[in-house]
């Protein structure tokens, strides 16, 4: 078995005085898809945002324990958070393309890193759009505004934008919660393709989605990790009664 790419050890997290995570331990395996599931407010998104330190943006948050990415604590004082976020990309719940053209959206991350060569940019943009299964739909309108696209296309554009900077990990925070079933199916298919090149961690409210596209599933409840195992096991033969109740839809 591979070494975990992310190793979370005894993670606790506070928003001000309110504790949101309690002694969480999770190992994320490379080139696997891990789903975080659980009812609203269980801390799954909070944990996800600890991994690329997006919680730094919220005033008064505090984290303890160790979150190691390739054996390096992401909260260590010597970590460059900019560098960290280049390696751990993120796709958000609400698709958030920039009010720029399709091309400029995907090129954004590369340009801010200082890439100016036109052909190099073009190659990377095309490659990312292809990987995000969007190329065929947008190849004739690369210079039209991204805001003119459908919701599902916008979300895949956000995935392409994240891919463009070639991260190792892609975090997805309920990427389909605002999409219709067809668009959702496309994204799920995409997730399975992306697994070859990236490690994916997806937060989802949708049980079937977790079952369909993840290899491992972590079930959270009230800020604690209740069960973490192979997805197959979680959905067919969970150890914990709460997990069973949740995945079978008896509560949540």
């Amino acid at each position: 078995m591979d070494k975990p790419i992310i190793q979370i050890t005894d993670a606790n997290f506070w928003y001000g005085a309110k504790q949101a995570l309690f002694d969480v331990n999770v190992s994320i395996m490379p080139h696997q898809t891990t789903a975080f599931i659980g009812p609203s407010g269980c801390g799954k998104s909070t944990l996800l945002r600890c991994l690329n330190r997006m919680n730094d943006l919220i005033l008064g948050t505090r984290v303890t324990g160790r979150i190691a990415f390739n054996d390096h604590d992401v909260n260590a004082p010597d970590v460059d958070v900019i560098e960290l976020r280049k390696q751990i990309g993120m796709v958000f719940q609400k698709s958030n393309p920039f009010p720029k053209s399709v091309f400029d959206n995907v090129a954004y991350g590369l340009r801010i890193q200082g890439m100016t060569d036109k052909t190099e940019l073009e190659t990377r943009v095309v490659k990312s759009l292809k990987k995000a299964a969007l190329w065929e739909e947008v190849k004739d309108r690369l210079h039209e505004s991204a805001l003119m696209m459908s919701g599902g296309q916008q979300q895949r554009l956000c995935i392409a934008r994240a891919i463009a900077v070639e991260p190792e990990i892609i975090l997805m925070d309920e990427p389909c919660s605002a999409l219709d079933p067809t668009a959702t199916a496309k994204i799920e298919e995409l997730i399975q393709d992306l697994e070859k090149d990236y490690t994916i961690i997806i937060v989802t409210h949708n049980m079937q989605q977790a079952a369909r596209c993840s290899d491992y599933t972590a079930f959270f409840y009230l800020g604690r990790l209740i069960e973490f195992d192979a997805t197959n096991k979680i959905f067919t033969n969970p150890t914990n009664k709460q997990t069973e109740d949740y995945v079978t839809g008896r509560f949540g």
Partner: protein
Amino acid sequence: MTILRAKGYDWRSTAFHAVTLAATALIVLAVIVIIGDIVWHGAKQVSWHFVTGGTKEGMFDAKTAGVFPMIFGTLALVLLMTVGVVPVGVITAVYLTEYAKSLSPITRIIRSAINNLAGVPSIVFGLFGLGFFVQFVGGGLDQMFYGGELHYRKPALIWAAATMAIMTLPVVIVATEEALRAVPNGLREASLALGATKLKTIWKIVLPEALPGVLTGAILAVGRGAGEVAPIMFTGAAYYLAHLPTNWTDQFMHLGYHVFVLSTQSPDIERTKPILYGSVLVLLLVTFLLNLTGVLVRAKIRSRLRHG
């Protein structure tokens, strides 16, 4: 079918409707009377000669007087003021929305200071400009660079523009702050999550998105700046000048101040009345054209933002 029958005439609703209508009619009427009166009396005076001519043959003679120097001075003042107020206002707004902790007492004090600045009567700004810019800054510059020789310690275009910029600063700050707050947080997060620094996020994503709002602030500032007289009376506007200003240390003539001069200093009020009306009409037109330019630029930027 008793339910469907009306319970009598609802005179309260009708009366209230009438009151709202009357209140609106009052302001509409006021605007019509003001604009109508000015256009009616002013249109006869406004000619090509009036707009392009100067005051060489006397400023109180309706047949020969022109207002070109005043138009020139007004535009120069507004331009200099805008160049000063927009960057400072935008940077302040960026600090307040993107960097300052919004709940800290210091931020709250700064915000209320800005709001108070907006409420200060314009004549106070005029006196402030005289004391601070002309005497203190101007005097300081003369001491430092000209050995006390008089260059900057006098009313000048630059000091009038600076005073006007301070006065319109709150307008730009408030409008920009509003525009910055309207930028969805998701865009900031998306940029940061791609490894952009905060500076790059503000510069490449937040500010371009807020640009139309910034322009709204600039338009409001220009609208206020073009018409105010009190702040420039002591800081740069002149009663009469034979020549156009060629340097920002020169004094200048101004449409608003000219109107004030015509209505208070004229030896024969009946003879100068047409010039007075004409000047007011030109002032309105200049303000309108400045605003129109701003609105058109803003519309252009908006459509570029939307369509990539």
